[in-house]
């Protein structure tokens, strides 16, 4: 018998997962920061009255969107 996502209910028990490595944790933190910054930049760009500032914030969002996509192949 399987769940709808395909995980067998009688799967063999495994040892607890190892704690995340420092590199993996750093990567997760960078990914979370990128996501947060994209949201923040979108909000700031929407509120910006100076057109140059608006473009500046949107260009920054471009870079972070590229990074966020790199984290999600």
């Amino acid at each position, binding site marked *: 018998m399987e769940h709808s996502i395909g995980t067998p209910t009688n799967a063999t028990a495994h040892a607890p997962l190892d704690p995340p490595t420092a590199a993996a944790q750093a990567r997760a933190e960078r990914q979370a920061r990128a996501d947060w910054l994209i949201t923040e930049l979108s909000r700031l760009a929407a509120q910006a009255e100076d057109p140059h500032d608006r473009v500046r914030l949107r260009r920054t969002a471009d*870079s972070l*969107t590229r*990074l966020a996509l790199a984290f999600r*192949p």
Partner: protein
Amino acid sequence: MTTTAVGPHPTSVLELFAVSGETARALAGADRSAWNGHIIESSSAMLGLAHWDGTLYLDRESIVDPLRHLYEHAGARRPTPTLIAYRESLATLLHEHAHFLGPDDATQEAAREAFTKLGSRQLEEGVTEAWAQDHLDDFIHRLGIDKVAPGIDSVRSNGYYAAFVPAIRELTSDLDTRNGFPPGETLSLLNRQTAAGQFPVLVDLVYNSTRLPDLESPGTDTRSRLESILRSGLAHLETYELSPTDLATTNSLATAHQIQAHLHQETHTAEATYASSSLQPDPCVLPPPVPLRCAPTPHQSALSGVAPPTATPLARTQLHPPHANLRPTRRSPATSQAR
């Protein structure tokens, strides 16, 4: 949007997009572009995106519409703000194309993975933007846009990524000087790489600008220490990403100077280690030291008439070749490393 083949100079926005990728690649001198020829007009917070699947996303209102307007009014005189809007759209187009560039053996998958590493985004974004700013007029001329929008090459607009660009300009221009390159060469070399190749090239250029290649043998960990300094220093730049342009510029430059100081300290320490060890005489190469002529001790005077038990004057002469051989011989890197 699917682009089409065109003649020497584009006469519509579709033709412009069709030749823009190859024009950017040729301008950069890169082996290849990962652009798949597709452009999607978007409407979101971002203005332009070089997607990892090879698709180019451009904002309709801010990027595509001004370029459409440019060709719809070909040859007409336009006010400066309109010309600046065209320039900024073209700058974004060139910038995004630069993201797709790489050497023949590059893959988007390796580039994507490398882009997530510490400092990679700041390096690539700074290089791409600085290079695009420096080559925008050439891009415009190659595409014949200066004929379509007269005066576009005489107006100027501010660039972006002020948190990254000043630092990258400072680091790359310093490497140009140190390596004897013409101005802009380091920036161009980095721009031809994907994120996977940029740090190795940058570290090589830093390393080769020092005396270390002549002093130490391959296999030392100096390069990894230099890379670590560069990565952590460049990663720090994102601290200023939300800052106003002036503040970001100031802090970006200050960060570059800190990186340079740290690199100098690291290389100076390594060079000093090898330089000092190379000045020490190598007992395997040098003959024994020549005895100094000095006043004999009372003990020596008392024994002055007694012959030494082993060495004869002839043997001593043979042990001391001409003084030319006393010059310290510089130890080879391999010998130094073995110690």
